[in-house]
């Protein structure tokens, strides 16, 4: 397809993604080193002969990584292969301890799945070509300059050997927004499975392949023939690390490519590097060299036959299904259902509370009050999920009228979060319990006695003066008396 010919037609965007996800296992994929990276950890303190690539070391497969892979396959409705095995991908780079990466080649553990995405209300299925396991390389620092101009390189192998899952989609995306929606959805599903942590640096890395094709070659349902794809020049975009970044990078590319084509220039088949800080992609043509990875089977790792694990391994209810059920079962509106399923832990917490109380009350307390206070304090639900009993006690106190909603929200809940105290203790300490009758009677009498001016005003016909007295009584009872009752009692007393 000549550039000129292309420029004279309407263009459609075709995108495919390769997503690398770090799996949350306790140990690395081929050795027993911990995957737990402390904030300020020192370099090269979580290594062993295996992940350091010392002479004589051998890889042994972590069953936790295989379990995680099967869960991903199950969640994506993919097939788990009858026979799957590892291969060596041979290339040289300082972050690769052995100068080959153990990965999967022609027999990946999962294949042929789908994930549904919805953009502006429109739902589409994105095809998953394959998903396989591999090891993460170490991390590099280019000192004295950028990757192109540095003086030397510093290498830290703490990350080397972390289990990765590479998920490759079919070229089913037709817009950058779709990729963002997909990635956000994928992250949510992976977190629900308990095998992914979005807050972890580098836990998600994306390479995208993008082509512009004649719009007329795209079917109504988005289908594109293999010939069309083969004819189009494909640009690979690397170094994307978030779903927002994906949308931005690809939107940039669409513009860049459309501009080039409209000026009659061909779009090169090349690899480009996404520079997030500058918001542009940069050609990496100078780094292009023959990529002959010389794949061959990794003889140190016996092959796997784990297709039956798909049946045996349970996965939790996935986010979409859970949201639907919350709406039906608890009668929640879309917004509440969404908030309450933002993470699996929040959803679990909500259901525990909803078991004991009216679902709407539970929803208000969890979605509005609790999540709001947690958010404000930069806390997560997981910081308090072990205090479920205390939280339900709080809701109980409100439900049975023992304390006012206001006190519950402003005093007790905050006290629970800030000081870690139990609700009953806070209620007692602050005297928030519904004032008993004697207490109120005394307070009423005291208020009348201490405020003769107000009493006089009242008798002079100023009904409003009783409000002042109500305020006094409320203060004395720590706000726990019922204002309506107090108002009545004052009038009765004053009218005697």
């Amino acid at each position, binding site marked *: 397809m000549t550039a000129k010919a292309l420029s004279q037609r309407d263009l459609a965007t075709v995108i495919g993604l390769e997503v690398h996800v770090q799996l949350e296992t306790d140990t690395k994929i081929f050795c027993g080193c911990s995957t737990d990276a402390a904030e300020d950890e020192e370099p090269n303190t979580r290594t062993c*002969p295996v992940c*350091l*690539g*010392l*002479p*004589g*070391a*051998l*890889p*042994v*497969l972590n069953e936790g990584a295989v379990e995680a892979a099967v869960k991903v396959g199950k969640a994506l409705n993919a097939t788990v292969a009858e026979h799957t095995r590892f291969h*060596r991908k*041979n290339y*040289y*780079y*300082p972050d690769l*301890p*052995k*100068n*080959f990466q153990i990965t999967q080649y022609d027999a990946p553990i999962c294949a042929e799945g789908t994930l549904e995405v919805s953009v502006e209300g429109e739902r589409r299925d994105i095809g998953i070509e394959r998903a396989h396991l591999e090891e993460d390389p170490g991390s590099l620092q280019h000192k004295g300059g950028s990757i192109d101009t540095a003086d030397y*390189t510093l*290498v830290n*192998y703490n990350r080397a050997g972390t289990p990765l899952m590479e998920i490759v989609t079919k070229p089913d995306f037709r817009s950058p927004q779709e990729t963002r929606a997909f990635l956000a959805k994928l992250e949510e599903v992976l977190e629900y499975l308990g095998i992914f942590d979005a807050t972890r640096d580098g836990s998600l890395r994306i390479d995208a392949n993008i082509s512009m094709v004649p719009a007329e070659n795209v079917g109504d349902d988005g289908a594109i023939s293999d010939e069309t794809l083969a004819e189009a020049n494909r640009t690979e975009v690397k170094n994307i690390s978030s779903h927002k970044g994906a949308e931005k990078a690809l939107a940039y590319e669409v513009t860049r490519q459309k501009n080039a084509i409209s000026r009659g220039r061909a779009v090169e088949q090349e690899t480009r590097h996404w520079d997030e800080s500058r918001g542009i992609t940069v050609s990496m043509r100078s780094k292009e060299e023959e990529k*002959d990875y*010389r794949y*061959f089977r990794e*003889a*140190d*790792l*016996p092959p796997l036959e784990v297709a039956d694990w798909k049946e045996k391994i349970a996965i939790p209810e996935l986010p979409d299904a859970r949201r639907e059920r919350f709406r039906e079962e608890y009668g929640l509106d879309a917004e509440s259902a969404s908030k309450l399923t933002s993470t699996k832990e929040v959803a679990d917490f909500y259901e525990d509370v909803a078991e004991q109380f009216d679902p709407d009350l539970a929803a208000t307390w969890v979605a509005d009050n609790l999540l709001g206070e947690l958010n404000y304090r930069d806390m997560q639900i997981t910081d308090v999920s072990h205090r479920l009993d205390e939280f339900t006690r709080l809701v109980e106190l409100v439900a049975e009228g023992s304390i006012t909603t206001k006190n519950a929200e402003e005093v007790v809940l905050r006290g629970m979060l800030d000081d870690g105290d139990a609700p009953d203790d806070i209620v007692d300490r602050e005297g928030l319990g519904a004032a008993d009758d004697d207490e109120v009677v005394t307070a009423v009498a005291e208020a009348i006695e201490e405020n003769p001016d107000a009493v006089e005003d009242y008798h002079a016909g100023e009904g409003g003066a009783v409000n002042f007295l109500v305020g006094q009584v409320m203060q004395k009872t720590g706000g726990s008396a019922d204002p309506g009752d107090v108002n009545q009692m004052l009038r009765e007393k004053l009218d005697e």
Partner: protein
Amino acid sequence: MSLNIFVTEETVAGDDDGPLAGKTVAVKDNISTEGVRTTCGSAMLEEYVPPYDATVVERLKASGATIVGKTNMDEFGMGGTTETSAFGPTKNPVDESRVPGGSSGGSAAAVAAGEADLALGTDTGGSVRNPAAFCGVVGIKPTYGLVSRYGLVAYANSLEQVGPIGSTVEDAAALLDVISGADERDATTRFDQSAEMDAHPAEGSDYAAAADGDVDGLTVGVITDLLEGADDRVVETFEAAVSDLRAQGADVVDVSLESLEHAVQAYYVIAMSEASSNLARYDGVRYGLSTGKEGNWNDVYADTREEGFGAEVKRRILLGTYALSAGYHDKYYKKAQDARAWIKQDFDEAFAEADVLATPTMPVLPPELGESLSDPLQLYLMDANTVPVNLANLPAISVPAGEADGLPVGLQLIGPKFGEETMIRAASAVEN
């Protein structure tokens, strides 16, 4: 006059008690020893000191043995005469003008010269059996997966095993008892987890006890294909030893394995391919030679390897890279794997006709030092009798069969998979 047996002489005492208490052991220098230099006979690792022990070394220490040093070897195990070592060749104690064989030449020479009671070597295509034959001692290559490779510096990881060397079959077998067994750090030993077996084959084994010399009723299959082209003196010595077995009650039959014609090619393609990948890690950053030269990553890396590797290692890395490269992978690597599978099948069929198979270990008598270095292909052909065993993942032993012109001749006995006992039994009868 030094035989140049050791690269590093250092004593490492084992536990006070154990089956090998009081014995000294020499360890081939490609087996990792914590705190003791491990060079693999290469300038690349001249100063490398491992921070960990190979599993076989741990087991050795636990058995009460004392390690007396790290022995010389062909560089990274690539060679059959110990002449490619960066630290100079080792001399054959039986005839110092000749090679001790390789690549475990130092280990075999150590036992033959009385420098150690026992030795550990490694065998990828014959590297324990070859020097055992040339030095007149006993060497065993175990079934693939019998002994842990954790800590063995890899050359060809689908072919190699650590193997014991001793003066007698019983000695070598006793060392095999100590080093063999499943290891959770080597997935290829986990036969204890396989569906077909209850336990790892070495569990509860007593290989030393199998050296009882009783071959009455045993059928020995002589592989006729591997007698053709061998030196007459070797064949004569071999046939005399086989007759002796017959006299002790064994039945002797002839067997032929058509696939063996392709064994050397298949071996070298596979070994070189794996080597090209296994040796990629030597870039001088985490360990190994540093040339101090300037340049970017790729330049420095290529320089380091130019300087750190000898000619044979370079040759094999390049040929292995070639065999795996796009355009040649199917022609060479894939075909070699097909040949390997064919050879395995052939051996299975042969073991239906015989309990053990017999060949001369080497087709020639020990060459003179310097004689073999001019033509690499000729060197590879010397491995014709030993490489089929590694390709088929089977066990084999080389036991002295006699001498010809004053030089040792070894007889090789090949056992069925995990049939070490049968093989050891037959070998001990050869000793009689």
